[in-house]
């Protein structure tokens, strides 16, 4: 099957919500040292809702597209919903079946998001 579906390539080439967020309420950088991919998630929360969701990073098409899709999907959703977003939901949003190695790329952003929410305002 083709991993590089149009919408994955589109999110990679035209990432949504890309860029740093100064004074973010939640921020976390997650890296995969094995492959060198890195994603930073920034969240601003207002009244329990994700007011702004931004990301920066570098990496392969799968990891960057996943972060972009996640940002689009969770902007203006409740923080509780963002925190509860599952690995399966992330894979469903990507719409592709990933091998165990590439799964780490696909789940890097969601992993960063979870740690950002759990650890609070952490710069790492």
């Amino acid at each position, binding site marked *: 099957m*083709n991993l*590089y579906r149009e919408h994955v390539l*589109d999110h*990679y080439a035209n990432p949504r919500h890309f860029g740093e967020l100064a004074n973010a309420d939640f921020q976390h950088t997650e890296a995969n040292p094995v492959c*060198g*991919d890195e994603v930073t998630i920034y969240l601003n929360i207002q009244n329990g809702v994700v007011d702004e969701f931004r990301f920066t990073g570098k990496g*392969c098409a*799968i990891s960057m597209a996943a972060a972009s899709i996640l940002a689009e999907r969770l902007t203006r959703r409740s923080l509780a919903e963002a925190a509860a977003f599952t690995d399966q939901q992330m894979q469903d949003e990507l719409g592709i079946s990933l091998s165990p190695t*590439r799964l780490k790329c696909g789940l890097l952003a969601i992993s960063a998001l979870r740690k950002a929410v759990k650890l609070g305002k952490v710069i790492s």
Partner: protein
Amino acid sequence: MPVAEAVGWAAAVRYLEKLGMEHVAEHESSLTEYALEHLAKVPGLTIYGPLETANRVGVVSFTVDGVHAHDLATILDQGGVALRSGHHCAHPLHDKLGLPATARASFSVYNTAGDIDRLAAGVCDAQKVFQAA
């Protein structure tokens, strides 16, 4: 003692000795030379390390403009060409070179020049996938 591994390793050594290590080295060197020559002609492809076979073994690391090494390896894999991608246990060197990852082709006795042609063609296909985005 990992018996199965030891037995398997012994079989591999017998196989290579039967071929003759000098022939194995010669074959790998000629494929490496072929790869260096042909991959260097692919637009947007950068080879790391010396561009001649002296001081080289049968591996060639490279990057392709606009295509991350993992994506490249995945696309080539779908076409039956297996590459390694990432840091190849050489993280400090990749940091020094300022590279997030490289792709790496390795050659052995069962490879042919045709495999390298398929690799070069696959790289061009991968570039097309990402150019279309």
